[in-house]
């Protein structure tokens, strides 16, 4: 069975692109277009990994992450933050809230993304810690 990934991203074109790319790489993909929908789908779809955007309407990435980590049924799902380079403060916040890793959207390459997803899932299974945020 394919690994199920939840992509939470408000930019429609990016959500479509990520969904398609990940599907082609052999993942099963569920999309959510804001934080509220992301939190709901995290619980209902039980994905093995969540790709979470930070700047979103209704409920932003940090808010969504807090809710995901607060619910017993979703708190163990590894979360990878989708972000732009300028969000360093928020990346730090997210990592301290329990996000496993982050991905800079602007120049991601599909192979990197797929590798990252695989690594995070492996790391989660072996139970090691999140990396430190980069030094600005």
């Amino acid at each position, binding site marked *: 069975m394919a690994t199920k990934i939840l992509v939470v991203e408000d*930019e429609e074109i*990016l959500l479509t*692109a990520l969904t398609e790319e990940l599907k082609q790489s052999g993942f099963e993909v569920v999309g959510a277009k804001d934080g509220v929908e992301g939190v709901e789908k995290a619980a209902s779809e039980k994905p093995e990994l969540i790709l979470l955007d930070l*700047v979103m309407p209704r409920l932003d990435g940090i808010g969504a992450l807090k809710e995901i980590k607060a619910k017993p049924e979703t708190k163990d799902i590894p979360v990878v933050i989708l972000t*732009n380079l300028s969000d360093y403060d928020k990346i730090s916040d997210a990592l301290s809230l329990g996000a496993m890793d982050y991905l800079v*959207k602007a120049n991601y390459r599909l192979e990197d993304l797929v590798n990252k997803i695989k690594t995070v899932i492996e790391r989660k299974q072996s139970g090691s810690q999140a990396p430190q945020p980069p030094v600005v």
Partner: protein
Amino acid sequence: MSLDNPVQIFLPLAIYTMIVFVFIWVENRRIKDRLRVKEGEMTRRMYEVSILKELGERIGYSLNVQKIVDVITGSLRQLISYSTVSYLLLSDEGRVIFHCVMEESVNHRFIEEIKNRLVTALSALINREIKTESVDESISGTITDESNRGRIKSFFNIPIVINNQPVGILNVASTKEGLYKEEEMTILYTIMAQASSAVSKLENILTQEKGKLNSMVASMADGVFMVDTRNRLLVINPAAKDMLGISKPQPSIFDVLDAVASKLDLRTKIEESIKNDRLTVEEQLPMNNLVLRVLISPVKDNENKALGAVVLFHDITKEKAIEKMREDFTSMMVHELRSPLTGIRSIANLLREEKIKNEQAKYQEFVDLIVTNSASMLDLVNDLLDVAKLEAGKFQVMKKSTDLTNVIKLRVTSFQSLAAESNLEIESNIQPDLPVMNLDENKIGQVINNLLSNAIKFTPKGKIVVSGFIAKNGQDLAGKVAEFGLIWPGLKPDVRLDEDAAIVAVTDTGIGIPESQIGKLFNKFTQLEQTAASEKKGTGLGLVISKGIVEAHGGKITVVSEEGKGTTFYFSLPLENPNIEYRNPKQIQKTEIQ
């Protein structure tokens, strides 16, 4: 009676002559006595004057009461004879000073006795007990002579009063009896009174000057305090207390140092500044909700001797906020451009694959995504460019004679279908006297476009009313609005125009805007930030640009709103020459038809 007897004639004459002589002699003596008295008085007066002159010269503009009293006691021997002259004085530092000048050697009990009498007298005068042991004592003049058994036989006291406040007592004492009469007392009293009046005047002037300085310091927006070289707080203004969160009315230096202790070792900074005689600047001190810049500057007297330091707190919270807004704006702009661009690149990559070309629906969806996203990016870039032009003052409007009614109607028509999609209705309420005027048709159209698209976005149900009318200089806008049957939620009475203008307004029945947000609407920094976190698409810069366009036409754009009831954006376009009746296109047509 015979007049031949010479004795009879001579005797009365002799008696008369005697009487005259006696009278002249007595009178002469009387005049001489009076002269002597006058002379004595004159000498005293001269003496008083010379002492006062000497006082004036030696005191200069001194405010040091002790110095003045010393001068007086030092010159007194030429005027009055005494064994000792002494004073008891309250000093500025709160000490009590006793000083005795011995003209003749007396024993120490004599001096002790004077001191005790003065302490008792001054205590009574200032209504506060002075303890003998708290008195600083000094003696000058000749040396004490314990063999002299002379006791105080005559003495008198003169109070030393500055600004109606008793500050000390002057005492003249002698071992001789019955020495001092009213005369001596008057002399000393006069001298003392003149000296105190001079000091009082000088002190008043100084207090006034100090008051000016104090009120200047007190009214400063910057926080200021001053310390001396021993780190004692000399003065602190209310702004400094507010900034540091000190509520005590009379704080000490420790209250000040404690307030910043967790962020700044102010004491060391002050000491270093004084030691190195250099202005020290602490660029950022976060304090409660404020960011402060701290400037520590050493203070020196005329002789270049260090007196202490002045510490100034300058509130740079706003500057920092603007700096942060600028940074945020840049990162938001990058975010807004980068996200769709990343998506476009990924989608374009996907389109290159052979497989996708067979999935017609998906292929079409991807192409559409690229089209709409690149279009919205272009909008944003255009808007950013417009804003940049506005800020650089290079935004140009091409005015030409235009029928404002047509401009409005055209915009309303083009938005009808979009409004219908949201189940909204757009009504027009355009008064027939709206003129043909000089304006940039495209740019004013862009403003109306922007107001209409905002109104549609933020109105879940109800309707949108576009109105146009003329308001004259000084007319109450609320009255005009009512006159044309319009309802603008949140419009307060007594909003008056300062010139004749055409008013164009877009009113919705939407969610309304909280008062705290209204100020942010026309600010590019806050707008883009709002947009990114909002599900409503658009650059958010429309209002910023609209404001620029309206202002380029000499008008103003304003918003009135009531939460839950709706919002009205209206802008004014000034009528160039209020004395001219504006050509009304409809009237002209009518005339022509007639």
